[in-house]
């Protein structure tokens, strides 16, 4: 009961800081804050089609955030989610290109998703190996591999996979409709993709909070030196964690290709890898808030698209709000910790 009240106070405090900060900022640039917030709300929850767009952002963002949580549990900062998503997208594109005019498009779709997860996982495993074998900190490894992945996707789009006749930033030749991730007539968001995310959430709840694997992962994150004495090889669990993290990012990447864009584009990761880091931090590295925070962030992203048209405000306002959320959350959590340790 006490814990619940603490969480509630923390949440309200964070919200109050963010709203007053943004309010002040909007006043400074001469905009009417109520209108800006109104447009954000209308632009994201105003209609079914807008909400469907929010969900289409929510799907990859949640997957990336869940993946990150595995890494965080083992004490790893997987900054390479962006690159892992890109690799997942590349693998999915590669498979779907092979599947053009095939008799079994569904088979190729399944294969694309699996390949996306595999490639994302392997790309992540690379930074895991660099850490466990080479002593390279995973932040540097992940960051470096992000740039490599970006180079790779640009090379593919402008090189081997360029559209017939022209090479353009708009990406590769779109896939035929039978290679699109399945949806339902009249649904602007694929219920199958939604179901996939919900299953991933449930599986993660079980894996991290109830399974022995989750306990070991957490132990490695808390004290990698001591876990050896419990018969747990810490490096192996670091690799498991980053592998799962990368596989979920790769899954997000393959959905971006097969479900959203139906082709490979240079900015296929849409920055969700970095945004996912903010989601997890705002959730204070806990699982249950993640889907809700991801939804909130998705709504901000989609809602802010309207701002330039309606108010001549840049859509980066959503980023400002997201950043302010995380900073104030870190502040509030930090104060809470300090208060608790002084009571002890």
């Amino acid at each position, binding site marked *: 009961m006490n814990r619940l009240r603490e969480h509630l106070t923390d949440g309200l405090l964070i919200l109050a800081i963010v709203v007053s900060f943004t309010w002040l900022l909007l006043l400074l640039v001469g905009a009417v804050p109520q209108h800006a917030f109104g447009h954000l709300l209308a632009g994201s929850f105003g209609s079914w089609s807008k909400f469907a767009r929010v969900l289409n952002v929510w799907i990859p963002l949640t997957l990336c955030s869940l993946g990150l949580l595995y890494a965080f549990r083992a004490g790893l900062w997987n900054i390479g989610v962006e690159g892992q998503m890109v690799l997942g997208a590349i693998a999915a594109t590669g498979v779907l290109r092979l599947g053009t005019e095939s008799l079994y498009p569904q088979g190729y779709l399944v294969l694309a998703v699996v390949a996306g997860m595999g490639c994302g996982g392997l790309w992540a495993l690379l930074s895991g190996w660099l850490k466990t074998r080479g002593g390279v900190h995973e932040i540097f490894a992940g960051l470096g591999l992000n740039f490599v992945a970006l180079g790779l996707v640009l090379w593919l789009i402008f090189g081997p996979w360029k559209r017939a006749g022209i090479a353009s930033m708009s990406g590769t030749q779109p896939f035929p409709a039978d290679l699109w991730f399945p949806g339902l007539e009249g649904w602007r968001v694929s219920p199958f993709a939604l179901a996939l995310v919900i299953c991933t959430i449930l599986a993660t709840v079980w894996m991290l909070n109830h399974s022995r694997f989750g306990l070991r992962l957490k132990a490695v994150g*808390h*004290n990698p030196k*001591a876990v*050896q004495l419990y*018969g*747990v090889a810490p490096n192996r669990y670091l690799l498991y964690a980053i592998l799962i993290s990368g596989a979920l990012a790769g899954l997000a990447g393959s959905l971006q290709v097969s479900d959203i864009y139906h082709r490979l584009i240079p900015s296929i990761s849409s920055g969700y890898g970095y945004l996912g880091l903010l989601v997890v931090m705002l959730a204070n590295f806990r699982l249950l808030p993640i889907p809700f925070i991801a939804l909130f962030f998705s709504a901000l992203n989609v809602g802010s698209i309207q701002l330039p048209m309606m108010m001549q405000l840049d859509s980066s306002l959503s980023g400002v709000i997201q950043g302010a959320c995380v900073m104030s959350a870190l502040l509030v959590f930090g104060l809470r910790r300090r208060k608790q340790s002084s009571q002890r």
Partner: protein
Amino acid sequence: MRVELQRIHKRFGPHHVLKGIDLTVDTGTIHGLVGENGAGKSTLMKILTGYLSRSGGRILLDGVETEFANPAVAARAGIGMLYQEPQDFPPLTVLDNFIVGRESQPGTGWKDPRRRLAQLADEVHFRLDPEAVLNKLTVGERQQLEFLRLLGREARLLILDEPTTGISETQKARLFQALRHIRDQGRTILLVSHKLEEVSALCDRVSILRHGQVMGEEDAPFHIPRLLELMFDAVPSTTPAYTPHTPGAELLCFRNVSSPGERTGLWDCDLSIACGEVIGLAGLAGSGQGLFLKLAAGLSHPSQGQIWFNGQQLQGMGYPQFKHLGGCYLPANRLEEGLISGFTVLDHFALATNSSRSRARQLAMDAIRQFNIRGQPESPVESLSGGNQQRLLLSLIPTDARMVLLENPTRGLDVGSARWVWDYLRHQYAAGGVVVFSSAELDEILSVADRILVFFNGHVVRNLPVNQADYHDVAAAMTGS
């Protein structure tokens, strides 16, 4: 400095840890503070040094009531504490460490701190090379440096927490000499210790704490049985007489093992340990005993030679396989290397036995009862006292382990708890297996081990049955003479 603590209370939530402590330490005396684990000594010292706030009572320094908002205020008031673990900066030199934390005084050149250090060292007959890097020094030497830092800061009350842990006999003698010297200069010293012999050799007056209350005060010369009586509800026997088991088949074997690491490394180690033996590793801290235990546990691998355990060579084997073969290793730093802070007692059982939560809860409850751990299955391990953490670690050793390796297993435990630990270990593991332990206390090794290995500078210099070992000979071997 005359220190008066009046009716000091401390509550942690529902726990009443200090129940009205009255303690007066006179100027120019060495005052001992003894008591078993959990008696409240550390809490009291933390209050006196400004790390903890008190729930009630007054602190008077030279008759003036004083408030310590934080450790810096206490330090400025002239209170200095020498911790069990040196609080210094190992990558820096002796001189740099001496300067760090000193408030800069305008007009003092670089030469000044160097001379000041030399002056202070001369005064108490310490020999420290100002350019030596701390990594290369022994714990004893680092402690000497800390001591000089406190003197340099004009600390008028010096609090020492178990100052003789891990230092050599010569260093101890020199420290005691220095303590007497600065006492005669009029400084006040408060000595917190478990070692009654040392307390009685050094102190002018002793206060005995039990369950957060002062049980009594005694003046020198002390009668040790009387002190024990005040510390404990019943006087524990300090020398348990265990009958050795008859050694059986060979279980652990070192063949010409050499390995660098841990200050001195371990060189040309060639020995064999048989079932039924309890082996005590003696030596000054960092003479190779720690490395010996890590090598035997497969946590570190030798650069030369072979180690065999239970008929298998350990080379290339990790700790999980070692554990599978029936081995177990408990490190000295419980919270850093042995337990996982943030995890509960229950979590530790789930992790150690790889079992479900309901099964782990049952195991945790059984262990709490059997090992008399003061805590609940849901207690986070960092909330347990040192003694209870050690009991938890012991309860996590599989009951069918064939070899138990322990680093300083009774470190920080009071006499009663230590006795309990040894009764348990000998009864549970020594009959059908091997117990190998290191200890900083020679007395302990001579009273509980069957065989003693003496380490000096990375070599095993004595290997004899305890009943043939002579205290003075072993002590001399430890210091290389």
